[in-house]
C-alpha cells in the first residue's frame, strides 16, 4: 500500500483518461451548447464548434498587455496542467490509475483550488477593475465552496477509512447499498451544488454573459486573447469534465472497470463517456430553466450545501 501503483495497465488507464478528457472536454461543452440551442429552438453550431474555436485561437497573434507578469502568463497553463493531473489521478474509467495510492482526494481538490487561485491572481495582476472584480467574486465563491467539498470528501472517506480515491470508488462500486445511504445521498446533493459553483455554471455564474457586472469567471479572463484564451477555455472545459466525472464515479460508479481486462477497460471508457455526456445534457437542460442568482444570494446557496455536507458527515458518523 505504500508504493505507487505504476504498472503498464494503470499507466495506460491514466494516459487514456488524460487524452479522453483533453480531447473530449470541448466536445462536452459543444454538446451542452447543442442541447441548449435545440431547446431554445435554434440549430446551434454543432458539437465540434469549441474545437474549431480553440484551433482558431491558437493561430491568432499574441498580445502582451503591458504591466502583466508571470502570474498572468502562467495561470492558463496551470489550469490545463491541473485538469490533466486530475484526469490522470481520478478513477474515471477504471479504479486503478497510475497515481495509485498517491491519488488522494484532498490533494486533487487542493489542486483545483490552486488553479482557481492562480486565475484570480492573474485577474488581479491586470490592474483593471474587471480583473479585480472577477477575482474578488471568484475567491468568495471558492472560499465558500471548498468547505463543502471537504465535508463531502470527509463523509465519503469516513466510511471507507481512507481518502484514497481508488479506494473510495472501488468501495462504492462493490456495494450499491453504500450509495443509497443517507450520508452518500446528502453528500451527492452537496457536491452537485459545489460542482456548479466551481465550474461557473448557472445559477452561480453565467458562462455566456457579456454584461461585465454579472460576470464572475469571465471578468478574470477579459484580458486574455489568442493562445492564452484557448488554454483558459480548455482548462475550464477540462475542469467541468473532471468534476462531472468525479461526481459520477463517486455516486453512480456502475460500469467502472474494477478488473484489468482490456474489454472491461473499454467498457469502462464508454460508460464514463456516456455518463459524463448524460450529466452534461441534464445540466444544460436545467440551465434553460434557471436564471442566475444575485451575487449575494450565492452564499446562501453555498451555505445550504455546506449544511448538507455537515449533515452528511454527521450521518456517516452516526448512521453507519
Amino acid at each position: 500500500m505504500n508504493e505507487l501503483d505504476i504498472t503498464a495497465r494503470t499507466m495506460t488507464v491514466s494516459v487514456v483518461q488524460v487524452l479522453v478528457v483533453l480531447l473530449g472536454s470541448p466536445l462536452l461543452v459543444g454538446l451542452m451548447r447543442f442541447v441548449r440551442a435545440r431547446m431554445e429552438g435554434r440549430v446551434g453550431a454543432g458539437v465540434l464548434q469549441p474545437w474549431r474555436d480553440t484551433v482558431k485561437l491558437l493561430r491568432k497573434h499574441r498580445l502582451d498587455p503591458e504591466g502583466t507578469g508571470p502570474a498572468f502568463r502562467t495561470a492558463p497553463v496551470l489550469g490545463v496542467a491541473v485538469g490533466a493531473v486530475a484526469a490522470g489521478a481520478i478513477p474515471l474509467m477504471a479504479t486503478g490509475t497510475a497515481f495509485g495510492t498517491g491519488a488522494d482526494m484532498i490533494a486533487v481538490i487542493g489542486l483545483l483550488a490552486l488553479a482557481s487561485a492562480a486565475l484570480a491572481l492573474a485577474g488581479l495582476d491586470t490592474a483593471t477593475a474587471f480583473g479585480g472584480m472577477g477575482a474578488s467574486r471568484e475567491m468568495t465563491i471558492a472560499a465558500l465552496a471548498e468547505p463543502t467539498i471537504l465535508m463531502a470528501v470527509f463523509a465519503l472517506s469516513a466510511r471507507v477509512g481512507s481518502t484514497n480515491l481508488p479506494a473510495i470508488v472501488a468501495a462504492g462500486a462493490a456495494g450499491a447499498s453504500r450509495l443509497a445511504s443517507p450520508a452518500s445521498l446528502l453528500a451527492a446533493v452537496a457536491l452537485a451544488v459545489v460542482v456548479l459553483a466551481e465550474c461557473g455554471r448557472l445559477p452561480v455564474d453565467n458562462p455566456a454573459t457579456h454584461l461585465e457586472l454579472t460576470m464572475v469567471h469571465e471578468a478574470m479572463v477579459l484580458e486574455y486573447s489568442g493562445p492564452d484564451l484557448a488554454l483558459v477555455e480548455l482548462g475550464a472545459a477540462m475542469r467541468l469534465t473532471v468534476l462531472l466525472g468525479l461526481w459520477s464515479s463517486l455516486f453512480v460508479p456502475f460500469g467502472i472497470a474494477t478488473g484489468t481486462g482490456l474489454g472491461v477497460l473499454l467498457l469502462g471508457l464508454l460508460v464514463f463517456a456516456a455518463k459524463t455526456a448524460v450529466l452534461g445534457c441534464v445540466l444544460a437542460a436545467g440551465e434553460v430553466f434557471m436564471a442566475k442568482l444575485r451575487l449575494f444570494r450565492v452564499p446562501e446557496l453555498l451555505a445550504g450545501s455546506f449544511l448538507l455536507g455537515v449533515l452528511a458527515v454527521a450521518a456517516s458518523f452516526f448512521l453507519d
Partner: protein
Amino acid sequence: MLSLFRKIAAVGRVAESAPPAPEPAPPELAARTRALRGSAQVRCVDAGSCNGCEIEIGQAFGPVYDAERYGARIVASPRHADVLLVTGPVTRNMAEPLRRTYEAAAEPKVVVAVGDCAIDCGEFAGAYGVEGAAGDVVPVDLVVPGCPPEPAAIVEALRKVTGR
C-alpha cells in the same frame, strides 16, 4: 417549469433553414483571415447609432436567423473577438474608444461596417457631433448596407468570414 417544458416541446425548431452560401470574401481578405475559417467571435461596437442596427444584430443571433450555426458567437471583450461589428456614424466621443477597441483585438481581425450610418454616415452626415464614417477611424473590410440592414444580410457578411 412544466409549462415552459411543454412550450419547448410544442414550438420545436424556430430557426429557418440556412439560405444558400454567399459569394466568398474578396481574395486578400480571405487570405488574411484564413485562420478564421469555421469560427469567428464577434464584438459589437456601437459608435453612435440609433440602436436600429443593434436590434437587427440581436435578431441575427436570435432563434430565427441563428448566426451561431455558422460559427459566429458574441463575446464580451474585443480581446476575445475576431470580428468587430461597427454600427452608427462615429461620434466625436466614440472615435477614440473605437480606435482603442480595434487596437485591443488580436490579428487576424475583420471590421464589418453594419448599416448606412457606419458606411457613409447615412442620415447623420454633416451633423455637428459626428466625426466621420467607420472607415475614417478604423480600416473597414466588409460592409452591410441598409437602414437598418436585414438580419439575413448581417448573417451573410458573417458567413463570408467563417466560410460556412
